[in-house]
C-alpha cells in the first residue's frame, strides 16, 4: 500500500495535524493484509517535522 503524504499538504509540521492524518488513513491501515508493505511517498512534501511524524 502506498500513501502519498503530499495529499496532506507540503508542510507537515504539527502533532495535531499528524494525528488528524493518522485518523484519515487508519481505515486503510486496518484493511492491510499480513505481509503487505506500507510505502510512504514523500514526493511533493517540502517540510516534515518529528512532531508530525510522531
Amino acid at each position: 500500500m502506498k500513501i502519498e503524504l503530499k495529499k496532506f499538504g507540503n508542510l507537515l509540521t504539527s502533532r495535531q495535524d499528524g494525528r488528524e492524518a493518522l485518523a484519515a488513513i487508519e481505515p486503510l491501515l486496518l484493511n492491510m493484509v499480513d505481509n503487505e508493505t506500507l510505502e510512504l511517498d514523500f514526493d511533493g512534501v517540502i517540510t516534515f517535522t518529528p512532531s508530525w511524524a510522531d
Partner: protein
Amino acid sequence: MELFNKDTFAQATDWIGGSAREPEARFYCPTSSEFKGRLSKLQSDLERLPDLIDYYPLIVAIVGEIGNNSFDHNLGNWPDISGIFFSYDTNKRQVALADRGQGILRTLKRVRPDVKNDEDALRIAFTEVVSGRSPGSRGNGLKFVLGVVLSKTIEINFFSGAAMVSVSNNNKNLKIDKFLL
C-alpha cells in the same frame, strides 16, 4: 520585502516583557491554525532565496517545531495572552518567535520534579527525550532543532524564564546562561 522599523527581536522582547496585551496583528498568531498559515508563507518566501535553497525546509521545520511547542504546552493553561508572536525578516535572515506561556521549567516539572531551575530545564529540553506532556511518543522536537542548528549556518537564542540557550554552527556548543529580559 517588508522592512521593520524596529528590530524584530526587540519587538518580540517588548511584547513578552511588557503588560499583557496582544501583539500587533501582523505578528500575532492566536491559534496554531494562524501559525501554520504564516509558516506556509515563510516557506514560500524562503524558497525564493538562492542561498537557502538547499536547506530552507529545515529552517521552516525548526520554526514549526518551536512555534507548535508553544501551543502544545500551553493549551488550556495560558497565563494571560494566548498565542504567539511570529515575525521574520528575510533581508536580515531573522525569525522571531515568542510566547507568554508557562515556560519550560513549569511544564517539565510535571514529569521531572527534580528539575531545579530554568537553566536546568533548558538543558534537559534540548538534550533529553522528555516532554511535559508525557506519556506518549514525544519530547524530541528541541533535539531535532539542536541537530539542525548544529549542522547548518544557523544561530539560535532561546529564552525561557531566567535562562537562555545559545547555539550556533560556529561554537558547536550548547551554551546556557542566566538571563533576565
